[in-house]
C-alpha cells in the first residue's frame, strides 16, 4: 500500500511570538521550529499502517530546506522516503493554496491513504486534509482516535461533542489524526545512522495564489490581573458580590 503522511513545520509550543514591523505577519527571527504535534501522530500512524499491511511511507511537506531535518527524523523512525515541496512562503499560505499544492503531489504519488494531523498548530485551521479528500473524491475521516484497516475497507472512531462516532469507509482515504490515536515512537540509533546519507528531494510546484489577505496581526489583548477578595469564610460574601455584580455569572 502506498502511504503518504503530510507534515508542517510550525513555531515551537513555547515560542514567544512577536508581531513583525509590517503588522501583517509574525517576526520569525529567533523562533525555533518543530513538526506540528498532530502531524507526528499522523506519521506514526502511517508507519504502523505500513508495518501491518505492507507498502511504503512517504513523508511530504510544503516548506523550506530546513524541513529536511524533520523529514529525516521521520525516516529514521520508519518512513521510507521524504519529499520537500520547496517553498519559503509555506507559513503564509491559506488553507486552499496549501491544500491544492499538496493535493497535486499526493495524486501524482499514487497513494491509497494519506495521513494528516487534525490541524497544524500555527494557523489552527484544520482544513487541508478534508479539502484534499474532497478534490480527489476520496473518503475522509477527521479527528480520528482509533483506526482499523482490512483490505480496502476501514473503520475509524472519531471524537465529537456527542460521543465517539464510528465511521466506515473504503480506500482511498484521508485520515486526520487526533491525540490518543497512538504514541509516536522515538528514532533509534540504527534508524538514525541508516538514513543519514539518504537524499531528500526538493521539488518545485505550480503556485496557487492565496484567497486570504492578511490585513492586520496584533498581540492578544492583555488579560486583566486576578484579584484576591479575601481569605477563608469571611471572604465568601465579597466573592458572591463580585461574581454577581462584576462577572454576572450567578
Amino acid at each position, binding site marked *: 500500500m502506498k502511504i503518504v503522511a503530510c507534515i508542517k513545520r510550525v513555531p515551537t509550543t513555547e515560542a514567544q511570538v512577536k508581531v513583525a514591523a509590517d503588522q501583517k505577519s509574525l517576526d520569525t527571527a529567533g523562533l525555533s521550529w518543530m513538526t506540528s504535534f498532530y502531524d507526528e501522530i499522523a506519521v506514526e500512524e502511517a508507519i504502523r499502517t505500513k508495518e501491518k499491511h505492507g507498502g511504503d511511507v512517504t513523508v511530504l511537506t510544503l516548506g523550506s530546506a530546513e524541513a529536511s531535518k524533520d523529514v529525516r527524523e521521520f525516516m529514521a523512525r520508519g518512513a521510507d522516503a521524504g519529499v520537500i515541496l520547496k517553498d519559503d512562503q509555506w507559513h503564509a499560505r491559506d488553507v486552499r493554496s496549501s491544500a491544492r499544492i499538496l493535493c497535486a503531489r499526493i495524486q501524482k504519488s499514487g497513494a491509497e491513504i494519506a495521513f494528516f494531523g487534525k490541524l497544524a498548530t500555527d494557523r*489552527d485551521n484544520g482544513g487541508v486534509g478534508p479539502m484534499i479528500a*474532497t478534490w480527489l473524491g476520496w473518503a475522509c475521516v477527521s479527528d480520528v482516535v482509533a483506526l482499523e484497516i482490512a483490505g480496502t475497507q476501514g473503520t475509524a472512531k472519531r471524537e465529537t461533542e456527542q460521543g465517539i462516532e464510528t465511521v466506515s469507509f473504503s480506500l482511498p482515504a484521508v485520515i486526520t489524526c487526533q491525540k490518543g490515536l497512538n504514541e509516536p515512537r522515538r528514532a533509534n540509533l540504527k534508524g538514525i545512522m541508516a538514513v543519514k546519507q539518504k537524499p531528500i528531494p526538493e521539488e518545485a510546484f505550480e503556485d496557487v495564489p492565496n484567497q486570504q489577505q*492578511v490585513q492586520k496581526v496584533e498581540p492578544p489583548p492583555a488579560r486583566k490581573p486576578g484579584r484576591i477578595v479575601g481569605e477563608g469564610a469571611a471572604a465568601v460574601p465579597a466573592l458572591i458580590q463580585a461574581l454577581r455584580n462584576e462577572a454576572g455569572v450567578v
Partner: protein
Amino acid sequence: MPNIVVFVEQLSGKPSRASLECIGAARSCGGTVTAIVAGAGADAAAAELGRFGAAKAVVLTGGEASPDALAADLAAIAKEQGAKAFLAAATSAGRDLAPRVAALLDSTLFSDCTALSAQGDAFTAVRPWLAGKAIATLGSSAPVFCATTRPNVFAASEAGGKAELTTRAAQSGGKAKVTGIAAKAIGKLDVKEAPVVVSGGRGMKGP
C-alpha cells in the same frame, strides 16, 4: 444584502446553541440567512430557526449519515442560493464539514473565527493564530467566504421572525458513513455549550 448559508446542527429536534450563535454571526454581517438542517428531528429544529433570524430553512430529509454526502448537499444549496458566504459553528461536525464545502466551492477556509464583518459582499474575519498568541484580521477574495465560528463568542439573539421552510431529499452514496455513536451520559453538558465554566483548584480538596 448578501445571501449567507448556515449549517445548523440539531439534537433531538433542538438546534444547538453554537449554531444559533452562528446565525447571529451571519446576521451581524447584514446577511439574509438560509439555514440548513439535517438528520432525525430536523423539521422540528428548522421550525425554531425563524425566531433566531433565519429567512429560509431547508430541511434535508432521508439520506445517510455521511459527511461527504452532506457537504455535497450544503455546497449545492449554497450554489443554488447564490450564497456569498457559508458558515458553520466550529464544533467537531462543523470543523469536519466546512473544509469539504469550501473545497466544493473552490474557496479557502477561515476556521474558528471570533469576529466577522462584511461591507457588501466583502467579508473580513478575525481569528486567533498560534492558539491565541496572535490575533489576525483577514480579508477574503474567495468566490464564497467559508468560515467556522467559535462557540460562545457570537450572540444568538431572537429576532421573532418566521422562516420559509422547504424540504429537500438528501444525497446518498457517501464515501464514509457514520455507523454508530457511543453517546456520552445524557444530560451532561458539553463544555463548549456551557455558559459558565468554573475551574477549581487543589484547595477544594476533591470533587
